[in-house]
């Protein structure tokens, strides 16, 4: 059996701004047979994206291929001329980006972008290309395949956009597809749909693929073989079965064991004293847009939410994308003054807006944002970022402050040397830990964590979770933990609340989550979590409950899009 992709001794180097050259890929060998899907897994920064991009003969700016060859369909992308590469891209190899939302040009219609490959390479007449695109939309189970192409990227949901990105890649009938973490940003219910669509398309067309991810469970559903990377080197190669069931390398083993996080150990004082609530949210209404005459904002997002957070405990908030989870956190933090309802901390009512709250109130309640990329000032070194709250709340200076910064870094398991770096020089997991350490620096009582682990690979995420747990025990912190990843919630929370369309539909102890969920949406959510089992995805079709729930959801989605377009 001939290999469609052969990577031999690939070395990629990058030049840092002090002129130092670092090798980010250190002699990788890799082959992919025709029709085979190979997964690249590994922690953040291990070089997965870099390798994937070399298949298209591309490196990000600042990087270059130092040596080696990348042969795709018998041609070496490293040795090609730029013009040859242009002809090669999109026709022989196609790329599905990590964030489809960013990869679509906001000012062009989806159809224009999907058929662009055909136009660039003059593969077929425009009308034929459009027809083909519509067929692809249908194959990828997109709603309204005939008309969805006329929309602009912001008019479709994230999951749909990810599938559209795949359609964009497939239009040129490539022989190799490169998927770069195509589902990381999606919530579990959407992820299932996308995964199924990808798998069906790859199977139907017999394409080879390279699938980059850090999520072993996802990879287990789609890949034939798994390549485990670390620090730019291949650690382990094997069939999916073999790697999942009998990992040989330490890192792989860590990955797999991290997949089943330890369930939350009950707090020691559990039964003894019924902990006093630290935060109470009473019939909270909040939203965006101008205030209407009824005293409610134009777009009401949160509808009558009641919540109670007990001291020293963690409350998980789950729900699909757009259900209002972040909005809830923003309202509590004072970023979005509520339209109605009350927020009380330690029995005292909190003012609606940040500016009306006292410094002390602000200190006690910290929020950690979802996207660590944008939550850290790109122009300040880590040390300065951490030092600021220390100075601001605790007036710490000089050596004491420096020592405290070191201690904080240590607390979140980051090397001290990192304090000289800028956020852009950190990997995703590192950024998220800095982000969290900044909240800790305030010495708060309550931390609102908004999806702080969703961008992290499981190993790192597990470490962060463990850290959270440990800090809770040591410092008696209270968390409100927002996530769409149920296993994470399971690992850290005592209770979990399910949000759906801005309302809290259900709340229960975590332990009862799997068995005791009553609301149909909660059940759908819970059963969508991928299992570390190569047959899980294929087995889903037989689950009648999930199928009907899915159908409902699709109808709801169509309706939501239609409404968005009207307004």
């Amino acid at each position: 059996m001939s290999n469609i992709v052969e990577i031999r001794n690939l070395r990629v180097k990058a030049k840092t701004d002090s002129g130092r050259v670092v090798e980010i890929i250190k002699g990788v060998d890799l082959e992919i047979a025709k029709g085979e899907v190979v997964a690249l897994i590994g922690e953040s920064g291990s070089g997965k994206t870099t390798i994937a991009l070399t298949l298209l003969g591309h490196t990000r700016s600042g990087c270059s291929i130092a040596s080696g060859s990348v042969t795709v369909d018998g041609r070496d992308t490293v040795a090609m001329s730029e013009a040859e590469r242009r002809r090669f891209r999109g026709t022989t190899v196609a790329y599905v980006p990590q964030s489809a939302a960013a990869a679509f040009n906001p000012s062009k219609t989806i159809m224009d972008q999907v058929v662009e490959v055909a136009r660039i390479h003059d593969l077929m007449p425009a009308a034929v290309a459009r027809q083909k695109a519509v067929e692809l939309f249908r194959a990828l189970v997109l709603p309204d395949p005939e008309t969805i192409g006329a929309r602009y990227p912001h008019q479709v949901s994230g999951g749909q956009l990810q599938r559209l990105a795949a359609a964009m890649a497939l239009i040129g009938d490539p022989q190799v597809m490169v998927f770069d973490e195509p589902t990381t940003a999606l919530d579990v219910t959407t992820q299932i749909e996308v995964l199924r669509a990808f798998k069906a398309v790859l199977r139907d067309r017999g394409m080879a693929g390279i699938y980059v991810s850090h999520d072993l469970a996802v990879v287990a559903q789609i890949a034939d073989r798994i390549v485990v990377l670390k620090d730019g080197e291949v650690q382990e190669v094997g069939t999916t079965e073999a790697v999942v069931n009998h990992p040989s390398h330490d890192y792989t083993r860590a990955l797999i064991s991290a997949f089943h996080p330890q369930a939350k150990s009950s707090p020691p004082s559990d039964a003894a004293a019924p902990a006093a609530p630290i935060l109470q949210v009473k019939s909270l209404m909040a939203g965006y847009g101008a205030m209407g005459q009824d005293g409610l904002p134009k777009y009401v997002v949160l509808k009558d939410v009641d919540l109670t957070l007990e001291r020293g405990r963690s409350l998980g908030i789950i729900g699909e994308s757009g259900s209002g989870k972040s909005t809830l956190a923003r309202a509590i933090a004072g970023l979005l003054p509520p339209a109605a309802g009350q927020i009380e901390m330690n029995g005292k009512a909190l003012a609606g807006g940040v500016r009306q709250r006292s410094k002390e109130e602000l200190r006690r309640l910290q929020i950690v944002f979802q996207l660590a990329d944008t939550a850290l000032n790109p122009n300040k070194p880590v040390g300065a970022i951490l030092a600021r709250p220390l100075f601001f709340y605790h007036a710490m200076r000089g050596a004491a402050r420096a020592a405290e910064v070191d201690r904080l870094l240590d607390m979140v398991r980051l090397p001290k040397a990192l304090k000289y770096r800028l956020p852009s020089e950190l990997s995703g997991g590192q950024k998220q830990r800095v982000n969290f350490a900044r909240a800790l620096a305030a010495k708060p009582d309550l931390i609102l964590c908004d999806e702080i682990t969703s961008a992290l690979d499981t190993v790192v995420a597990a470490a962060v979770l463990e850290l959270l747990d440990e800090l809770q025990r040591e410092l008696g912190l209270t968390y409100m933990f927002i996530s769409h990843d149920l296993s994470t919630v399971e690992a850290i929370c005592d209770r979990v609340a399910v949000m759906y369309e801005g309302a809290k539909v259900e709340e229960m102890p975590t332990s009862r989550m799997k068995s005791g969920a009553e609301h149909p949406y909660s059940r759908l959510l819970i059963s969508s979590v991928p299992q570390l089992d190569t047959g899980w995805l294929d087995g889903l079709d037989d689950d009648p409950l999930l199928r009907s729930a899915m159908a409902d959801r699709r109808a709801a989605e169509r309706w939501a899009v239609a409404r968005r377009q009207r307004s």
Partner: protein
Amino acid sequence: MNAVVARLVVQRLGIMLISLLIVAFAVFFATEMLPGDVAQILLGQSATPQAVAALRTAMHLDQPAILRFVYWLGGLVSGDLGRSYANNMDVAALISGRLTNSLQLAGVTTLFSVPIALCLGITAAMFRGSLYDRIVSIVTVSVISIPEFMVATVAVLVFAVYLRWLPALSIADQVHGIGELLRIYAMPVITLSFVVSAQMIRMTRAAVIDTLNTPYVEMALLKGASRRRMVLSHALPNALGPIANAVALSLSYLLGGVIIVETIFNYPGVAKLMVDAVSTRDLPLIQSCAMIFCVCYLLLILIADVIAIISNPRLRNR
């Protein structure tokens, strides 16, 4: 036009009225602060106190200035710009011909300089870091660092005095036909283009480079798009907003700021009219010119904002 644009336009026009009022008051107080008044200045060296007083009475300038200003504002509401103090002509009549000239010059300059500036800015961004890019950016800065009056004078010396290809003066109402138009406008337009292009070039380049760094442009690269396609089809539409803003700001200079060009080429436009008006303390005329500059400036900004909205579907369909 859709609802968003319509709402913006209506809102801006409302704000424009307020801005005009602010400008009117500011200009009024500014003019009041200047030494001398019309009567005194018209009489010039022969301004004895009695003569000035008599002339003031004769010109009906003996009312308090603020009262006259308020009357003028009242007239403005009904579309009457008032009468010039200096020569008792209708301000509207005085301005109309000159405004046409100014708009013509501004229009021809725009038609000439904007495409060139955009081309240079875009190509420089396309070949960022190349020799071409460097040459464009050095030339741009050199071009604006030569004073306007020098550019104009050198142009006249070369093209009118030595080569005798073009007339030294641009007398607007001699234009009959395209050939003459080119001959007459060539030098003022080149001079003005020198002044206004640099900012447009630099801002266009920056805006395009900004969008060239986005993931969707990288995606286009990975689809096999050529550099041209990446820039023209992907980066440019998204850079249109900032570019339109930079262009609008540069063009706003073309009405009130062209006094030097008007002087050297003896081109009768509104900038010189404004200067005359200031030097004779001719309040209705000063005010009217200031209103025109303000309206044009705000309109340009409005157009730029509308372009930004239209070019961005996210804003367009909000």
